[in-house]
């Protein structure tokens, strides 16, 4: 468990967010795995996958009543490259770039849950993350947030069809956007973008010239 501060000079104190983290730790104990805070800006918290719903309930009890969104992250770099380079050119294998690196608050799995809730009275939000361990058959599952926030219904349906994560306790887990017989999970990185396979990107094109930095026409009449 580690707290990370990004400020180098005078340490900026964010009492509100510190208090939120302290209360979360008090409610959930060991379930809070990692916390990342940019003081006065934002707060990230990672919890264990088993306590996903409990974390939601703890946040709700603290006053985080507004449900912003719920989704997932696939941390594997795309095996198809970033789609911006000329595919006829040879690209060297970069072992560093092709390993899975999770972002803020770290993690161990390729997939992570991502959710955000807001407290409309204290004007603060929290981004919640959780690892998604894969079962033996490659599937992933996590508890549904519907008992905590009713609006999670549609978000979980979309996450299910895009990433292949199943939600325990969801009453009606069917596709949101895709046709019923769609195979594959589009937002996973190993699902190719068909447009790029059909017609490879010819490479980065010359961007427009930047406006001159000594621009003194900034005065408008």
């Amino acid at each position, binding site marked *: 468990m580690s707290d990370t501060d990004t400020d180098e000079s005078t340490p900026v104190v964010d009492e509100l967010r510190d208090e939120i983290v302290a209360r979360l730790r008090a409610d959930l104990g060991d379930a809070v795995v990692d916390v990342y805070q940019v003081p006065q800006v934002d707060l990230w918290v990672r919890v264990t996958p088993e306590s996903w719903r409990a974390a939601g309930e703890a946040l709700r009890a603290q006053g985080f009543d507004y*449900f*912003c969104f719920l989704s997932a992250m696939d941390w594997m770099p795309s095996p198809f490259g970033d789609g911006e380079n000329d595919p006829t050119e040879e690209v060297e294998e970069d072992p560093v770039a092709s390993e899975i*690196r999770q972002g803020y608050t770290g993690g161990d799995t390729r997939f992570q849950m991502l959710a955000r809730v807001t407290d409309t009275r204290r004007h603060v939000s929290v981004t919640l993350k959780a690892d998604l361990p894969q079962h033996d058959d490659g599937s992933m599952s996590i508890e549904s947030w519907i008992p905590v926030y009713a609006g999670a219904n549609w978000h979980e349906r979309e996450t299910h069809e895009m990433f292949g994560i199943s939600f325990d306790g969801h009453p009606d887990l069917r596709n949101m956007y895709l046709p019923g017989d769609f195979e594959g999970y589009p*937002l996973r990185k190993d699902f190719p973008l068909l447009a790029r396979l059909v017609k490879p990107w010819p490479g980065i094109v010359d961007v427009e010239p930047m*406006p001159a930095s000594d621009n003194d026409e900034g005065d*408008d009449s």
Partner: protein
Amino acid sequence: MTMLSERQQMSYIAAQAADARLNVELETEGMTLNIGPQHPATHGTLRIIARLDGEQVVWAEPSAGYMHRGYEKLTEVRTFPQVTALINRIDWLGSFANEVPFILAAEQLMDIEAPPRAQHIRTILFELSRIANVSLFLGDLGVQMGAVTPVFMAFRDREYVLNLIEGATGGRFHPNFDRIGGLKDDLPKGWLDETRQVMKKLRNFCDEIEDLLFGNEIFQSRTRGIGVIPADVARQYGLSGANLRASGVDWDLRRDQSLPLAYDKVDFRVWTHPDGDSWARCWIRLQEVREATKIVDQLIETLPPGPVMTKVPRIIKVPEGEAWVSTENPLGEMGYYVVSKGDLGPFRVKIRSASFNNISITPWVLKGVYVPDIITILASLYFILGDIDR
């Protein structure tokens, strides 16, 4: 301030319950009606599957996805400036507003700030896109109810705002004007005077619409007490914008968070309404257009001189990190969760669009209403298909 007495609310609910009981006793067969995807009422290709009992809805379920373009996948193969061009098209009526949260998130990751003049002009264009978007809503409201005339007035007056946006950015509907570090260009000469005139015209338009549509007794009887959404249900579903404020929640992202936009330099009022019915949602949007014209007026007066772009490298590589920025867009709260790995383009962009959450409440709110009320409630929730389906 609520116009709807307890008795009226209870009697409306009781009447519907009585009807439902009677229908169950008579065991009349229900009819499944498809509203959409091609339908004059839906703002695009939204399909609502409604199971009706006579004229009453037993359940209704929207089936979105007819316009899904896969934005989140598309952003993974584009550079940051290219993503800006793409996300214009999410909410295509107030499209400058779509770019702003993404650019702010990228600037947050790069730890740069646009110069004050650029922030100011961003805010002006943001409010102009709000006016363009919501004035069409006001006109369209009439058409959904059957009044065919207000929509023409809305289009006529909206043209002035679109001309303004085109004058500044070069595009009426898809400006693609925001850049990481500032704006593409400065304002043309004479634009500020023109804007003053247009804001006066828009205020006249608001008065006209209030007289013609909101003052009409039939309109009021069609919208008051219809589709009541209590405040805690609204928060649970993540309703945002005017929908949330219409349920009495005092939450406005322009005032309640500090972003590098010029909102802290202007005075504006955040409108709320305690009722939470369709009337409240429509009325609040009307007030918000008026408020937006006042904000633009104040911003024009206090526009600081200076550059519109900070020094950024020619090829922009955003450093590694994650950032979330959301703004009070015309439709509600729109936010981008940008994950960057230090490349030319983002690693993942999660687009949180307002209409997705706004429409997710329809199965809950459409239980037991009449068929015409479906149209009223959907019209008052106000969605853009591109926003739901991304």
